[in-house]
């Protein structure tokens, strides 16, 4: 799918009808099918797709580094015009040491745990023949380039002493140390907090502008791709289905898969009560499936007989935009799989003023005597029936601990008040009645961990019905069947063990279990973060439907601000165990908001374009064990300097006060002051 306008310049990286297969049990199973694309000098090219689409395989194939059972079975991979497949191992080694390098998904694991960081970077130079002192000096310079504050200290550190963001900087420094012509980034910010992700992406952008390195950027996140890449290729089942300028692809997609994918995303401006997310039916064909027609035909709502039997050609549209589809012109008007608007009758409006659940003065301290860590400080919240409260904050902010306190899995400190319907809830499960336990339930993040892999899903749900509802085993199983069917888990699968189910189905089982005891409040702890976008959309729709029919409240924890915004009525922002801001979702997002919220919001890469005024948090998250004096944010606050109240910020912790009706904030700056400072922020975000 090379663009025809690039004739005179040799591409830095060119995939030419590349086929890659993994040998599984003696059979070659195709992973990449006829993939062609080019990364031009100085260009940033994105490869995007859901898990299992082959994007990482493409990245490693470009370095000719495939797993032991993987091999390139066809086509050419050209680096600056010469084919990599036919080159000697030594030639490839030299290319890796000088011309191309990579940044990985888990930066801490990517560094050798028993070597100091400095030595690992210096090694890059010693391969090139530099002496020890020179290598050291150049390693220092490389670290300086990635904006690390105390380079001397970091050089002496071991990888486990670095934060994720810092480790990724080190890996980037290492990758760029030899000024490679090609830099491959494989999900470089997945698993990092949004604020850290934003910093890393900023850094890559800056360095790329300086060095002119070509970039192949692998991500599942369209927002990240949008903010980083000039052009993008969409991979599906090992095939490049659409390619073109990033903005073009995202604004005017011409392949049914891309169209469907974009409709699954809860973008800014969408709300659960007004806009239902679209879903993509079916699922990715399993690895190695033999496909005669279009790879997407099984899931495509405009597929014809031709699509199922014939390979579609690559259709060239305008400006290098191409789509591997028989009907690129029909794609934009692809019929939806779900209704545009949510359920016909809105039964009840959420009760945002109510007090189904009330938390007051909730604190939680771990450890005892000399070494105590206070992970929650003076949390006060209330939740009405049928309301969704979004809980956001970086990792370590206390989100999960707060959830555990609500559930009775972790008893809060003495003096904390946790009430359901105005009556105190026991601090632990042992102290709660079966009805109370059933009333507050959870959907865990990882269904693999949350579902006992030795039990059938019917038993998993049925046992909860029995224990929480006092039913017999038969009644429990019958109720489990009806609950599972309600969650649209096919009846034939009720006797299956979780391992048989896809991630989305497992999460449906987990939701069925949470609803077994007629819950009033369900804590959703990152329930979709392990799922692909298309599956996420179906799960979010299900949660919305259940809320309407059951009038249940959600405490929705997520690092994905887009999802939180879509689903929440109100949002609480947590930092170092404190609520920094609390208010209606739109108010919190549109601002004026707390400086911390502002940074969170502006770090969100959007598929709809860039926020114009980016605000970044400074430095690293302080340890919860040793929070800063005064306002806990003051060490990183983007609005402290020049606020006129610096002294106050550094010494006195502000109270959480109502700055406008229903909108609470913990900040010394006035709402007006914040409004003035934040006025430039893109309203889109």
């Amino acid at each position: 799918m090379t663009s025809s306008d690039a004739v005179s310049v040799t591409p830095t990286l060119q995939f030419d009808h590349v086929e890659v297969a993994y040998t599984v049990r003696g059979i070659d199973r195709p992973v990449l099918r006829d993939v062609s694309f080019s990364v031009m000098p100085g260009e940033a090219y994105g490869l995007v797709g859901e898990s299992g689409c082959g994007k990482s395989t493409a990245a490693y194939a470009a370095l000719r580094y495939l797993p032991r059972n993987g091999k390139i079975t066809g086509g050419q991979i050209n680096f600056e015009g010469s084919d990599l497949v036919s080159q000697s191992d030594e030639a490839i080694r030299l290319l890796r040491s000088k011309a191309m390098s990579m940044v990985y998904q888990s930066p801490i694991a990517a560094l050798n745990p028993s070597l100091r960081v400095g030595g690992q970077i210096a090694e890059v130079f010693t391969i090139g023949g530099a002496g020890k002192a020179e290598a050291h000096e150049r390693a220092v310079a490389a670290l300086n380039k990635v904006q690390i504050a105390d380079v001397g200290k970091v050089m002496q550190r071991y990888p486990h002493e670095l934060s994720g963001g810092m480790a990724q900087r080190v890996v980037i420094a290492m990758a760029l140390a030899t000024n490679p012509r090609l830099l491959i980034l494989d999900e470089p910010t997945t698993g990092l907090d949004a604020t850290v992700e934003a910093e890393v992406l900023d850094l890559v952008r800056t360095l790329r502008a300086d060095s002119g390195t070509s970039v192949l950027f692998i991500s599942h996140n369209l927002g990240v791709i949008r903010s980083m890449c000039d052009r993008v290729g969409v991979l599906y089942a090992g095939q490049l289905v659409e390619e073109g300028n990033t903005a073009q692809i995202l604004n005017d997609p011409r392949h049914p898969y891309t169209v469907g994918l974009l409709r699954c995303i809860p973008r800014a401006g969408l709300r659960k009560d007004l806009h239902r997310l679209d879903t993509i039916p079916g699922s990715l064909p399993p690895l190695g499936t033999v496909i005669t027609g279009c790879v997407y035909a099984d899931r495509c709502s405009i597929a014809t007989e031709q699509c199922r039997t014939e390979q579609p050609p690559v259709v060239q549209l305008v400006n290098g935009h191409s789509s591997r589809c028989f009907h690129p012109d029909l794609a934009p008007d692809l019929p939806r799989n779900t209704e545009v608007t949510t359920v016909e009758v809105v039964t009840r409006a959420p009760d945002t003023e109510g007090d189904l659940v009330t938390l007051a003065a909730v604190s939680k301290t771990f450890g005892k005597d000399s070494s105590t860590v206070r992970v929650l400080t003076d949390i006060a919240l209330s939740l009405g029936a049928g309301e969704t409260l979004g809980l956001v904050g970086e990792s370590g902010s206390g989100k999960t601990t707060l959830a555990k306190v609500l559930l009775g899995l972790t008893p809060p400190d003495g003096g904390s008040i946790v009430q359901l319907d105005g009556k105190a809830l026991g601090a632990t499960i042992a102290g709660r009645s079966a009805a109370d336990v059933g009333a507050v339930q959870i959907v865990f993040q990882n269904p693999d961990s949350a579902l006992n892999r030795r039990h059938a899903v019917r038993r998993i749900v049925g046992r909860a019905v029995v224990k929480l509802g006092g039913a017999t085993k038969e009644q429990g199983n019958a109720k489990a069947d009806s609950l599972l069917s309600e969650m649209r888990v096919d009846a034939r699968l009720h006797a299956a063990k979780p391992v048989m189910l896809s991630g989305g189905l497992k999460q449906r089982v987990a939701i069925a279990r949470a609803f077994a005891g007629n819950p009033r409040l369900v804590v959703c702890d990152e329930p979709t973060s392990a799922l692909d976008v298309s599956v996420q959309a179906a799960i979010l729709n299900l949660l919305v439907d259940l809320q309407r029919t059951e009038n249940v409240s959600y405490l929705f924890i997520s690092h994905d601000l887009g999802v939180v915004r879509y689903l929440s009525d109100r949002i609480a922002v947590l930092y170092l165990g404190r609520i920094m801001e609390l208010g209606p979702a739109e108010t919190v997002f549109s601002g004026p908001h707390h400086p911390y919220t502002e940074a969170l919001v502006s770090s969100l890469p959007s598929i709809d374009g860039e926020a114009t005024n980016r605000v970044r948090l400074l430095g690293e998250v302080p340890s919860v064990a040793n929070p800063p004096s005064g306002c806990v944010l003051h060490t990183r606050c983007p609005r402290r300097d020049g606020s006129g109240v610096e002294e106050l910020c550094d010494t006195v912790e502000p109270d959480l006060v109502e700055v406008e009706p229903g909108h609470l904030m913990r900040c010394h700056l006035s709402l007006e002051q914040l409004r003035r400072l934040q006025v430039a922020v893109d309203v889109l975000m």
Partner: protein
Amino acid sequence: MTSVVNDAQVNGAPASDGRMRAEQEAKSRRNERIRFLLKKPSFIIGSIISLFWLACAFFGEAIAPQDPFVQDPINKLKEPYGAHWFGTDNLGRDVFSRVIVGARLIVLVALAATIISAVLGTILGLVAGYYKGKVDEVIMRTADVFMSVPTIVLALLITSSVSSKSMWVVILIIALVFTPIVARTARASVLGEAELDYVAAATLRTEKTPHILFKEVLPNVLPSLLVEFTVRLGYAIFAIATLSFLGTGVSPESPDWGTQVATHRGFLNGLNVSATLFPALAIASLSIGVNLLQDALSEAFER
């Protein structure tokens, strides 16, 4: 690569054949481990050897071609020949038949000791791993003590002070020594398991601890415990054979491999090899058989 059922049916896509496939997959998945094992040479060879000796242990007299107790002083210490495939021993008894019948003691004692230690060790390990804290500390420090001296030495120490040499004494000694070691393995697997959310989910439907331990956690750690069982069985055979050889094991009423080796090794220097070698090889074959089983099982369960 096992394919899984996907959201296909959820969204109402035509997936009837997908469902069929799912059901078949479910069945085949259940049998996958067994099929994997049946394809592994180490499993097949290990099973054949182990089952052979197990059969000998129970039906030795019926399998043995001759009466293992009939003495023939004229034909003593013969190397193998037509009538005696493994030759004869110092009293002219048929070595082949004595090897067959000799499986009984070692197999039964090893099995009994291993089963006892596996049951006790599993319970202790579950409790230690789940409750952590003081219970855990006590059990693990006890295990430390038992593991600070080799099994065989510990067994020697205890045999020295117990006058009875009955089978049950040896069984109890080996079981006692192995229990803390099994407990340690069980604890290690429980520790990881107890962190998983399904345990929290069980408490969130008011399950009691015994239910969580035995109905939720135990089924998940069973595979690693099965592997540990075969490991222990191997060590039990090792220890029991050695104790017999040293003359500190069960005083045998029936033939016993270790004792046979000990009795005849004096003849090795020129007089007779078979009466020593064949019982020794019997021990080796049983040990290897159990080890091959263990190797295959651990691979099947750790995949």
